């Protein structure tokens, strides 16, 4: 008998993950109702409100999956090897993020069984085509970036060497593709000048989407890194990694905020946010979630302490999620809309699947390089 050594899979499952598994199952059940009964029966979508919670979920998840490209650029293009371990964590969270966003398409699309049409019927001037193509290619790139960890675990050394040879080009292509698609996610809304509220509609949307995804990439890396250290005892990061990421976060948060408010001021529409409207309030909350972390990260002693860096990062991810929801939902004209329980449950399920997948990968694959190896770089 030939023997293939299959590495042991970790057996003990934390309670938290069991709970998420239940949520995931319920979510799959809710997704089932959409496949059987259809969009009209299980969602509150209509002809004047054709996009709902699923689209906003996709936009938000894809945005903070930017952690993969922010950190990849920092570590590998700008040679900051100190961030090597956290870049791995960011890579995995981006990877599972994209997988659950892509999975959302199977319920969101009216004709999910025709997803393959993307490859056959091209409309190269559609922003959505650009998004789709970049996401598909980028998911492939992320898989290639992720594969070495799996191959190392399986000890398939020859394949490992093969992939290894292409790593720098792979990382570079990944960064270019994700930059492109983050900004084209913003271009989607450029086609809606009459529908999107002027607080959010600007020709700068692609730039804002790109910069804010880059920003939240740093925030997400901080969040996942610090949260993960509680669950995975073997996670370790070099000294100053989190305060360093905090500094980058501060810089990019400020740039994002400057572009957002500066553009509004240029258009003479700053006053709109103080109008006592639903959109005005949502805009204020969104930007408060950018301003608060900037303040936290500016205070000298506090900005070196992990709990505060964590809070700042959580706030900025919140601000980003708000922005994506505002652009795709709050700021859009259309019929009254609130998600149904099927929409809510399936979205929660997709998020749970993502987290479980992350846990599976993180607890079974060698994410951390040990000090010796890392220092030899």
């Amino acid at each position: 008998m030939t023997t293939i050594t299959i590495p042991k899979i970790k057996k003990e499952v934390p309670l938290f993950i069991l709970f998420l598994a239940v949520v995931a199952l319920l979510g799959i059940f809710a997704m089932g109702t959409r496949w059987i009964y259809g969009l009209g029966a299980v969602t509150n979508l209509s002809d004047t409100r054709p996009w709902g919670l699923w689209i906003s979920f996709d936009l938000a998840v894809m945005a903070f999956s930017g952690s993969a490209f922010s950190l990849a650029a920092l570590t590998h293009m700008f040679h900051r090897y100190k961030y090597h371990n956290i870049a791995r964590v960011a890579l995995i969270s981006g990877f599972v993020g994209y997988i659950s966003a892509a999975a959302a398409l199977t319920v969101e699309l009216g004709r999910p069984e025709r997803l393959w049409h993307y490859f056959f019927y091209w409309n190269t001037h559609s922003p959505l085509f650009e998004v789709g193509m970049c996401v598909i290619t980028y998911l492939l790139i992320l898989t290639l970036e992720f594969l070495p960890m799996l191959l190392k675990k399986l000890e398939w050394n020859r394949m490992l060497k093969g992939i290894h040879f292409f790593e720098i080009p792979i990382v570079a292509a990944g960064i270019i593709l994700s930059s492109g698609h983050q900004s084209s996610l913003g271009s989607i809304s450029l086609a809606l000048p009459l529908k999107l509220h002027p607080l959010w509609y600007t020709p700068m949307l692609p730039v804002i989407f790109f910069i804010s995804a880059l920003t939240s990439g740093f925030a997400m890396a901080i969040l996942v890194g610090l949260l993960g250290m509680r669950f995975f005892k073997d996670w370790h990061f070099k000294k100053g990694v989190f305060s360093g990421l905090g500094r980058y976060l501060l810089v990019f948060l400020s740039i994002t905020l400057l572009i957002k408010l500066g553009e509004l001021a240029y258009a003479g529409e700053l006053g709109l946010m103080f109008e006592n409207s639903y959109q005005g309030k949502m805009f204020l909350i969104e930007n408060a979630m950018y301003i608060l972390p900037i303040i936290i990260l500016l205070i000298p002693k506090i900005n070196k302490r992990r709990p505060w860096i964590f809070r700042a990062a959580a706030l900025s991810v919140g601000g980003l999620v708000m922005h994506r929801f505002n652009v795709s939902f709050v700021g859009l004209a259309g019929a009254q809309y609130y998600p149904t329980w099927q929409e809510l449950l399936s979205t929660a399920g997709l998020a749970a699947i993502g987290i479980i997948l992350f846990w599976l990968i993180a607890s079974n694959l060698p994410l951390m390089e040990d000090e010796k190896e890392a220092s030899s770089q």
Partner: protein
Amino acid sequence: MTKTNNTCNTCISDLTRRDFLKVAGAVAGGLTATGALTNSALASSGGGDIPLEDQKAMLYDATYCVGCRECELACKEDNQLKEEDVDDLSGHTFTLIKLYQSEDGSEESFRKYQCMHCVEPACVISCPVGALEKTANGPVLYESLKCIGCRYCMQACPYGVPAYDWSEAYPLIAKCDLCYDRQDGTACALACSPGALISGTRGELLEIAKERIAANPGKYHEDRVFGEHDGGGTSFLILSGVAFENIGLPPLTEESIPEQGHTATKAVPYIFGGAAGLMALAYRATMSSEERAQIQEEYSKEEGETA
């Protein structure tokens, strides 16, 4: 070939840097080519070889409309759509007559809702799989077999035209096709007895509309035809006695929606190219002197081998 010795097995550290620069260049080049294609495709999306004034079109003069809804019935019959009672266009209703009344009742007008068959349609540019097409003769057609159901066309259309059959588990878009296969005009125009709807070529219809405006100064809103230039122009032209916004027509500029987004699309290849270039620069600039020395060593080793 570079050796992959001592260092981390699973990251990019010990690199073939020159290869990276090459590949980054190739990636940028490929994307630039896609971008160029994008721009030329946009330029030709204006309806092929048939000049605009000879394309199929319709004129709706709201001041002639009496609200008999014969056009709705004719459309249902011609497209074999089921009867239903709706307030908006839907998967089974391609055209609809609505009545507008001002609050004091002094002003009223009908409006015929249907696909406007834009000269540069937002739906056509937005559809990722090209299921919507601006045909050479004017009608904007939907190819149901390509559609993946993303609903971007519904979102992008400023007139709220593309509609879904929400009762289906795997629905499709539905909308007016300007009776593209009929040679004698459109079913709704043929059914219109008060003469509010006329089908013909865009050129002759614009002429009729302008004659009516000239003959009745002050009768028509702003003394102009909606759709001659609005949103880049439409093939469904409207004459109205009341303000356009009162009968639900959007305040469009003369620039079409695809044209507005064009600036962003045009920038794409440069952004990609620029990003690749910047990354290559950053890669070189931020390299430590040790790494530089290492590369130098590799170079000289390779040269030594080939010599």
